[in-house]
């Protein structure tokens, strides 16, 4: 049952082969027996998921079902979910029961989805390994000694291990694509503004974007359909029509121009990973695509630029956690300043504090021009690199990550090395473009992700390009040992 696609499950429910209650029960049993090894969930909604499933079964019986009706989905714990703990992976919000639904959650509920649980994540989405979660690290289902990637590591691990039908994630510098690559699943970061950020706990507001994490591009199209669209609650959401993403999945790829940026295949890229990427590109040639060499000359500046823009915005966004209205409050505060300082220091972990301080420094009097303003100017140059490339090509391809999943603890004490592991994903966020990661041939049993980057609002094209490869190869179908 847990290896079926979204459309197969929806058909099975409608045909009465199984009920939504049985489906949810099946996943709850898998979570209780298998998740202790992975730690991919922070909260499991046992009772409410079964209630929602019973309701879904009634709707299906009445012929009143939506595309996701009765399907159990995991929400990254960054999405506010009414009546459910929404921790954002932080001690700060360990007791925060959200009084409202994020737009993404509300829309998915409206499409019939069942909230199975809340997926583990790096604290406030700040991390590339899921090791910064206050709830402990998530293990990679392909190798329990390795990280699942981050920050949406719980979502990626849960999808790969078949502990949910699909999941949501968020991506500020690669947080959907990098864990999707490490866990061998399909993940998409849409164009900035395509998916509402309302109720998605803010990290870096000009970069954050929610998106689907699934076992195939076909499933991603269905999930994105439910998530996307303008929202009056988010003034940065874009009022562009949402196309039917499933309708164009099978479009022909003849004449598709694929750009390969030379900077993504430099000395930092693992040889074996490079071979897997090249093999996938060869498959695209067989499908009729043409390959064009392109250059994104400012690639090397993406990580430094990001580590000014993202911390600056985070220091501002996280100022709201003051121990007054919600979230952690320290014991016996002596005065207001003591309340603020101790509540925040106890509530936030080391990486979050590090980024708040970098951002505070970059925005402090006398440093704004040298840091934030400079970074926003370089961001323009990075964005122009893509603009020029997209004058020649339809999509850009390369590796999602320079290596396969690294070991738990391997980079935890060296933030800068950890940051550099996101070299291929970060520029996409700075430019606001859509990007995907799909699994290609693994290296030594560890998944490898092919990154596909598109022009603004080219999500349908990206899903089409990803789907066609998944029709002729079976890399996306393999399940990690012990979770088949």
């Amino acid at each position, binding site marked *: 049952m847990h290896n079926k696609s979204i459309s197969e499950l929806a058909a099975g429910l409608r045909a009465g082969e199984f009920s939504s209650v049985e489906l949810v029960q099946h996943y709850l049993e898998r979570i209780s027996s298998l998740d202790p090894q992975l730690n991919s969930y922070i909260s499991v909604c046992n009772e409410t998921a079964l209630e929602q499933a019973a309701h879904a079964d009634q709707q299906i019986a009445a012929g009143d079902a939506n595309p996701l009706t009765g399907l159990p989905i995991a929400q990254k714990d960054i999405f506010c979910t009414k009546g459910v703990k929404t921790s954002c992976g932080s001690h700060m919000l360990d007791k925060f029961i959200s009084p409202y639904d994020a737009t993404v959650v509300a829309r998915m509920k409206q499409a019939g989805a069942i909230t199975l649980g809340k997926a583990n994540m790096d604290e406030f989405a700040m991390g590339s390994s899921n090791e910064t979660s206050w709830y402990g690290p998530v293990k990679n289902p392909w190798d329990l000694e390795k990280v699942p990637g981050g920050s949406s590591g719980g979502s990626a691990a849960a999808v790969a291990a078949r502990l949910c039908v699909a999941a949501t994630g968020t991506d500020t510098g690669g947080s959907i694509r990098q864990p999707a690559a490490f866990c061998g699943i399909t993940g998409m970061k849409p164009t900035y503004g395509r998916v509402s950020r309302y109720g998605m706990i803010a990290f870096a507001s000009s970069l954050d974007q929610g998106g689907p994490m699934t076992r195939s591009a076909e499933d991603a199209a269905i999930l994105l359909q439910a998530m996307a669209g303008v929202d009056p609650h988010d003034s940065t959401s874009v009022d562009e029509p949402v196309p039917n993403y499933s309708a164009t999945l099978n479009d022909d790829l003849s004449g598709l121009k694929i750009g390969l940026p030379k900077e993504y295949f430099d000395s930092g890229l693992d040889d074996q990973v490079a071979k897997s990427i090249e093999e996938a590109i060869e498959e695209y040639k067989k499908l009729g695509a043409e390959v064009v060499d392109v250059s994104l000359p400012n690639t090397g500046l993406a990580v430094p630029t990001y580590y000014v823009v993202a911390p600056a915005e985070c220091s501002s966004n996280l100022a709201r956690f003051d121990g007054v209205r*919600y979230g952690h409050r320290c014991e016996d505060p002596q005065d207001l300043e003591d309340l603020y300082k101790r509540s925040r220091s106890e509530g936030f972990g080391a990486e979050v504090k590090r980024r*708040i301080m970098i951002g505070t420094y970059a925005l402090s009097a006398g440093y704004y021009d040298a840091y934030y*303003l400079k970074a926003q*100017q370089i*961001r323009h140059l990075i964005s122009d690199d893509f603009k020029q490339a997209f004058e020649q090509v339809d999509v850009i391809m390369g590796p999602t990550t320079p290596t396969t999943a690294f070991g738990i603890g391997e980079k935890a004490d060296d933030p800068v090395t950890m940051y550099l592991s996101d070299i291929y994903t970060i520029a996409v966020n700075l430019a606001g473009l859509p990007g995907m990661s799909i699994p290609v041939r693994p290296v030594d049993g560890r998944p490898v992700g092919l990154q596909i980057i598109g022009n603004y609002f080219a999500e349908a094209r990206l899903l089409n390009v990803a789907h066609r490869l998944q029709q002729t190869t079976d890399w996306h179908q393999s399940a990690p040992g012990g979770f088949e």
Partner: protein
Amino acid sequence: MSLARDDVEKIAHLARLAVSEDELDSVAAGLSDILQMVEQMSAVDTEGVTPMAHPLHMVQPLRPDRVSEENQRELFQSIAPQTEDGLYLVPKVIE
């Protein structure tokens, strides 16, 4: 760019974070490493480049100034650390 202990104390205060005496050196070293990596930016000529405020160069849309939310004080205060008579309580601010 390398930060000294007193720089860290100043930044921590601005961010309303407490950094203990024995953490100061390691925090200063960690932050300095990041700032050193960020330093690569200064070599780039950005003369005349417009800063990018929004990926799609959008301007802020405006909506009519009409009330769209109901007052949900009780619901919101039910998750507050400390309230009384509809007010959020904090330590005494005015002597």
